[in-house]
């Protein structure tokens, strides 16, 4: 029997187009040809269209004078600066919102996430309401709400809300004192650096001693004391070179101080609360993933609730929390592009908005903008992956 069947398997009667290998190569060739054809068609069309509309291609426009003002600049910029400079200003503004937003979103997220699991009914209820309401409203809606309904409704500068006599909140934004550095600031900064170094060394030494003898140093008071006292003494010796320039109301507006524009405040608050709600859910899932036996074991060792959470539960929960946390950080950075909806001068508003309208260089500008976000995405995920590797479970 087998002699009869053998040759049929060896030399199949079916056509070679049914051979999986041939099929796979054929399919891939078709896919490749399609993509290349599509790409060629796009490029060809773009060339014809650009020629018809007399738009010059290339990145030369970046050196032209921009001629428009920007309401918030972290680096010197004026209307005579170039489009390249405007790009830099927009990029820095985007990064500023991203960093500040991520900082606050993380804090909100961790507190609310822990609150969602609290034994306290009131805390749990409040946290749940917060998460459910914020997560189910569009971020652009929330940004517009903060901008139009909250910040624009603030009183005029003359009736501005005063916090601690230093910070003024009005419909023109938040005005805070500006630190002024005079000669001698260097010494203060150096002394602070030195104190920091000492604290770090002490921290490691204390940890080693605790491992050997079971008794470490009370690091919190020592560290705080050193880091506050040493710079203070240095300041006293050099005659207090760092002072605050207080904002003052002159006429209809404030003079002095630093003005945080309302667009920035609205965007940051909205993004931080929005992303914070998502982070809270990640944190909750992470904490719930740590088995209850860990908590019980920690309690039976005599650790208090706070210690159990800080030393046992959270380090283990971090492994589960980090990967989704990364994507939340990326989401916040990408959502910061919603700034264009309220006119905060971020990358998209300044570059893909104003610059694109003035120059008409659609292809270059949108390619650069998308490229920036892609690079930001890649950098964030690389950093987070490195961290993730460090906290990952080391298995025997």
């Amino acid at each position, binding site marked *: 029997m087998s002699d009869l069947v053998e040759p049929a398997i060896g030399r199949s009667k079916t056509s070679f187009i049914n051979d999986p290998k041939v099929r796979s190569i054929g399919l891939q060739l078709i896919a490749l040809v399609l993509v290349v054809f599509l790409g060629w068609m796009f490029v060809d069309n773009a060339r014809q269209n650009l020629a018809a509309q007399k738009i010059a291609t290339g990145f030369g426009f970046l050196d032209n004078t921009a001629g428009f003002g920007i309401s918030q600049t972290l680096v010197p910029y004026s209307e005579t600066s170039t489009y390249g400079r405007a790009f830099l200003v927009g990029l820095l503004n985007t990064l500023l919102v991203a960093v500040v937003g991520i900082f606050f979103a993380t804090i909100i997220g961790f507190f609310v996430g822990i609150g969602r699991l609290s034994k306290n009914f009131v805390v749990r209820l409040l946290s749940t309401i917060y998460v459910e309401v914020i997560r189910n409203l569009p971020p652009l809606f929330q940004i517009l709400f903060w901008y139009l309904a909250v910040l624009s409704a603030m009183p005029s500068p003359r009736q501005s809300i005063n916090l601690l006599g230093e910070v003024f909140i009005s419909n023109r934004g938040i005005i805070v004192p500006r630190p002024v550095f005079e000669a001698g600031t260097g010494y203060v900064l150096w002394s602070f650096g030195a104190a920091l170094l000492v604290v770090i060394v002490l921290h490691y030494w204390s940890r080693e001693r605790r491992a050997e003898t079971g008794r470490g140093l009370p690091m919190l008071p020592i560290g705080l004391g050193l880091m506050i006292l040493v710079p203070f003494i240095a300041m006293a010796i050099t005659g207090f070179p760092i002072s605050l320039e207080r904002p003052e109301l002159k006429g209809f507006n404030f003079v002095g101080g630093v003005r945080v524009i309302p667009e920035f405040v609205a965007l940051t608050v909205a993004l931080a609360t929005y992303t914070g709600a998502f982070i809270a859910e990640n944190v909750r899932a992470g904490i719930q993933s740590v088995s209850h036996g860990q908590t019980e074991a920690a309690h039976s060792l005599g650790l208090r609730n706070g210690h159990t959470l800080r030393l046992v539960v959270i380090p283990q929960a971090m492994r589960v929390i980090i990967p989704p946390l990364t994507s939340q950080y990326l989401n916040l950075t990408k959502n910061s592009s919603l700034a264009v909806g309220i006119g905060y001068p971020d990358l998209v508003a300044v570059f893909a908005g104003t610059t694109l309208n003035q120059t008409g260089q*659609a292809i270059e500008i949108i390619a650069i903008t998308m490229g920036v976000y892609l690079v930001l995405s890649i950098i964030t995920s690389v950093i987070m992956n490195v961290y993730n590797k460090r906290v990952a479970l080391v298995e025997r």
Partner: protein
Amino acid sequence: MSMTFDDGTFIRSELVTPLPPPIRNVGIIGWMRENLFSSVLNTLLTLFGLALLVLIVPPMVRFALIDAVWTGENREACLDPGVGACWPFIRAKFAQLIYGFYPIEERWRPNIVFAAGAILLVPLLVPSWPMKRLNALLFFVVYPIIAFILLTGGNIDASSFLFQRFGLIQPITGDASLAGVNIAFWADFVLTALVAAALVGGIIGLIGGNALSAGRAVLLAFAGFGVLVLAWDIDFGLRPVETRQWGGLLVTLVIAVTGIVASLPLGILLALGRRSQMPIVRLLSIVFIEFWRGVPLITVLFFATYMLPLFLPQGANPDGLLRALVGVALFSAAYMAEVVRGGLQAIPKGQYEGAMAVGLTWGQMMRLIVLPQALTLVIPGIVNSFISLFKDTTLVLIVSIFDFLGQLRASFTDPNWATPVTLYTGFAFAGIVYFLFCFGMSRYSLFVERRLNTSHRH
């Protein structure tokens, strides 16, 4: 009931009934001591939380209900100091918030679309109701075509196909048309289909394949496409309504539903591509997915608005809403692909091997064995990406398409309704609408998740 011995010893013959627990440890008081005031910090948190609730909830209720104005013709009604929500403003703007500037006498058309959508969607969502396959076919294939015809008015002018470019058809048929259908175009279309089928069949036949089935497949594809174009081409006597006149909730739902209907099949294809053994297909899928996932939707919309027209042939200037729709669909397809991939990865290898062992082709294996299991597993994920798609529809207002939020923002500028509370009323209304949609979807995903879990519980 006790025994007494002669020497006076007293022995109880039954247990004393236990005393009730101290009143402070049971009931509401016990619960409060346990949960709300167990420590100083906990007490402080409770008091702080209660203060927060008192600060937030009563003013909101007072604003929305107690102090609210319910009747009025214009801003005069809502000008009193200390007045709450100005609901007449919403009533006056309601039609605008729902339809935008869709012509008033034509609004029965979006109404039918809304109703048909609801009628088809509800049975699709109830898991125990029968005929899911037919229902899905109606919702995902037939409904979009009908909705398109109703909303735009149909009668899209199909002018020329392949052969007309060489001037071959027009001389024979002339400019005849039947019920708005251009005869020349359809003659051209049928001819092209026949030629393509013959060509493909011939090639497949030459290299040893089944020429007849190849030709039939090509003809079927053309027929399907033809039905689609024909439906748009026939003149139903509806007045055309430009998408520029659409607005409000109508646009929000059009974008959301189009995104959902387009992103699911595209996402499945991309996920399969990413899991494929073929390196080029896999690479193309990965690049596509990661590119769209790495950029914000705004830049995608800018891309669709400013860059896409440059990439298309000269003179082809697609409609603004259509461009945004393409952007949204591609963007959400990339996210959908990752959700589906998660489901594909959760299917044990034995399922694939079993399918191959019974001799199923790759297509049959995916269609009959793997995808049904994988998609059921990730229904919560799919619903979640629908929620974010729904929230993302608001972004189109930045490229000047007036969706629900865009209409709301536009209505704030009406001097007829300029009152101190207009802004808050509008935000409250829009917030409630968005919340109901998104919260409803998330509850549904939880419901499905729970239903699915039962089968996995040991």
